[in-house]
């Protein structure tokens, strides 16, 4: 008997006399954002919750986006950010580093920062999700550099975790980002900045 057969047989014997257990598919368990006490506008809620993680957040309109991005990069002293394939041209600075041919980990470690879009964002938790799609690139592009500037369109923001899962494709590798890299390992206090990007800056485009 292989271990596979053995484990399956043990499971079947263990639950043989157990009653059937129905799973409640309670995916929409949380009421939508906008209930009393919370701002009804998902953009406002999202921006506030990202800021709670000590990330820098800017909210702008379509015309202002390029200027806000350029100013953020300049403030950080980033002259040539890494930019993945597929980032909209109007957000892309004149000078940038393309991931073509693919950058090595060492090159990314020396990069000044990375500028990306995202796939989905969640208002209630202040979370950004990347799915390696256009404008986001391979997972390591947003991991190794110490500075991540991420542009989120208002239409990409959903209220709840459940809605985000509906929009995402599990076949793609996903990275959910809620603030900069942090640890709670020293006396259970959150300290920002360990192995991932220590600075996260977010531009929300209405």
């Amino acid at each position: 008997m292989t271990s596979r057969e053995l484990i399956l047989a043990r499971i079947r014997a263990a639950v043989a006399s157990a009653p059937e257990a129905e799973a409640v598919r309670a995916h929409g368990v949380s009421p939508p954002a906008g209930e009393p006490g919370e701002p009804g506008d998902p953009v406002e809620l999202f921006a506030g919750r990202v800021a709670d993680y000590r990330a820098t957040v800017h909210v702008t309109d379509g015309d202002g986006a390029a200027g806000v991005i350029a100013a953020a990069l300049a403030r950080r002293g980033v002259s040539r950010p890494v930019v993945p394939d597929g980032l909209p041209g109007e957000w892309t600075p004149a000078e940038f580093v393309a991931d073509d041919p693919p950058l090595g980990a060492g090159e990314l470690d020396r990069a000044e920062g990375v500028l990306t879009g995202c796939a989905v964002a969640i208002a209630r938790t202040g979370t950004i999700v990347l799915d390696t799609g256009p404008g986001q690139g391979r997972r390591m592009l947003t991991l190794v550099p110490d500075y991540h500037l991420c542009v989120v369109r208002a239409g990409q923001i959903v209220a709840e975790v459940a809605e985000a899962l509906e929009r995402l494709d599990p076949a793609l590798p996903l990275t959910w980002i809620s603030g900069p890299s942090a640890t709670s390992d020293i006396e259970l206090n959150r300290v920002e900045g360990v192995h991932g990007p220590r600075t996260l800056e977010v531009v929300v485009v209405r």
Partner: protein
Amino acid sequence: MTATFLGMPAFPANAARAVHDAQLRANLRKATRTIRDRRAAAVAELPGWERLRAAGRQIKDHTLRNLDRYLLRMEEAVVRAGGHVHWAADAAEANRIVAGLVEATGENSAVKVKSMATQEIGLNEALAARGITVHETDLAELIVQLGGDLPSHILVPAIHRNRSEIREIFRTRMGARGRPAPEGLTDEPAALAEAARLHLRERFLAAKVAISGANFMIAETGTLVVLESEGNGRMCLTLPRTLISVVGIEKLLPTWRDLAVFLQLLPRSSTGERMNPYTSTWTGAAEGQEFHLVLLDNGRTAVLADEVGRQALRCIRCSACLNVCPVYERAGGHAYGSVYPGPIGAILTPQLHGMASELEASLPYASTLCGACFDVCPVAIDIPEVLVHLRGMAPHPRAERLAMRAAGWVLDRPERLGRAERLGLRLRRFVPRRLPGPLSAWTDTRDLPELPAESFRDWWERTGGGSGRPPERARRVGRRLPVRRSRAHAGDRERQERGERGGGGR
């Protein structure tokens, strides 16, 4: 340098030592109180928490009831996405599989994401025995590994260390395993985190093989899910060419959408955050990586067979039960002698390992049954219920068995109880402070109650329940005591007054 939990003495001996360590108690008190408040705030903020908690419990129960079906679905989905699936019946087999996979890459070292399953099976030690070095990359695991120490908390394995102890460990031990700590390292948490970043940076960038666990597996899609904070998880999951994940079979969820429930329950219960900084999900061979999934039983199917105990398999390892436990807060994690400390450890360890050793048999008693753990559990594991169930199954000393049998005989009939009470009261002058022989184990940690001059039943008989009515009538009233509360209370008051006045001396 690696410490081990093997051969640890029973919980009472460990706990007695721990409570005399003032530094340990101060560290634990500070940390558990901080996290308790944060969890409470994060849970209170989310509407519908109880419904979410019920959904978490139901999804897990449903999965466990149909575990064979969902495991096969998981296997099929992972293989379809280009991954490899291995089945390990016990720790030794899992360790053998992982060692073989690392050796097949031609490498002799691996980076590792913190994982309870790999700690449970002693993977690092098993790989070391085959000449493979494992580098822990989680900050707390690094502190534990560098200090030659044992983990004492599920989420924060180095919770027993404070910042200045961590600074000392980094300063004296980092150099031996790679890049030394920076000159003039302070005990500021930010500086300590920076030291860990520098120490591990080159190792991450050069790593060829990574080992991880997973928080969840999605049967429908074959997806693995890892929640973390620091980015060491992302480094391990993303950069190396080969990824090996060792995951307990109970970590399954049926569908992708079920994840919504658990991505809300876990971070708020665990670190008290709306969401942890990083969550990675991947399906099969992501971005051209070679991916191996090792499905681990190691006693889980035995737990599944226990009608009461199987609810422990719902556990998502959030550690909220540790942080609220009055016993954990004082005794610390090491006293539990297992990688699973605290209330969940007290029900998981004896079930996974059996209760043959003294340590495991003592764990169901490492609790006051206050129930705080049940209240905070995001998947509603009734830990006190399982503890009591396991106490019934644990081996009991002969003296205790005899005493319990005798007590059962006496309590079975009111006449016997009455006679025993009167006999006891007549002999009250001779009752010792400590019981003799094996019964002293009971009185070592408990004071015998002072015996009153008269039993409640005799007093009731004599005074008519304090009503002043003839005893015959009062006795009938007495039989209906529960519905005649006011009278009973009046009697209590009078009895108290009597006690204050004369101390019952007759």
